[in-house]
């Protein structure tokens, strides 16, 4: 597994873990005696920082960080991610009109909750696009 694949897997891992912790904190916010949000944020940082060692390790000392094929794959993944941002922005711009009505208003605190996940989703789509292009490999990949 080369560095580009590892980075994509790491990105998906960080996103998934962040979503799970966020959902857990949201559900458990009114439960007494649970560890504080600060505790979970520190744990999240430690757990996501540890795999950096995994990212730095190369298949071979002479292996380049990225070759021409890796750059092509990353370029296509960026295009995928960019298109997804457009689609998601269009949806989040149009959907509220049908959900709350054309004359209604949305509180300011809701805007980050609506827009920031677009960036996170775009990161996830980028990572998935990278991994899909690399494929699952086959027995030749073991040599």
């Amino acid at each position: 597994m080369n560095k580009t694949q590892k980075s994509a897997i790491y990105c998906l891992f960080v996103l998934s873990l962040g979503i799970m912790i966020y959902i857990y904190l949201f559900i458990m916010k009114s439960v007494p005696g649970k560890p504080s949000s600060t505790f979970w944020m520190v744990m999240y940082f430690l757990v996501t920082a540890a795999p950096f060692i995994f990212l730095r390790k190369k298949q071979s000392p002479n292996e380049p960080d990225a070759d021409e094929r890796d750059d092509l794959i990353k370029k296509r993944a960026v295009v995928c991610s960019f298109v997804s941002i457009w689609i998601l922005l269009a949806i989040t711009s149009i959907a509220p009109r049908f959900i709350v009505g054309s004359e209604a208003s949305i509180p300011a605190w809701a805007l980050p909750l609506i827009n920031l996940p677009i960036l996170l989703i775009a990161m996830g789509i980028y990572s998935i696009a990278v991994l899909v292009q690399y494929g699952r490999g086959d027995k030749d990949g073991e040599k």
Partner: protein
Amino acid sequence: MAKSEFTNSVRRLRFENDEMSQQGLAEKAGCTRQTIIAIEQGKYNPSLALAFKIARAFGQKIEDVFQYNEDSNR
């Protein structure tokens, strides 16, 4: 319109050269092992520069390693 197709003899040449590993060829050509795998499987056509590096790793001419077959469908 003529239909073109690229083929290569990378895998055969690798075995003919003391059973060179994909990793070994990747190091000589300055690319990753995954790129060598994709080239051998015909899933990726290397750039001119990489094609020359791979040919030189085998001590061969580029046209002996990579072939361009123009298949005309008329």
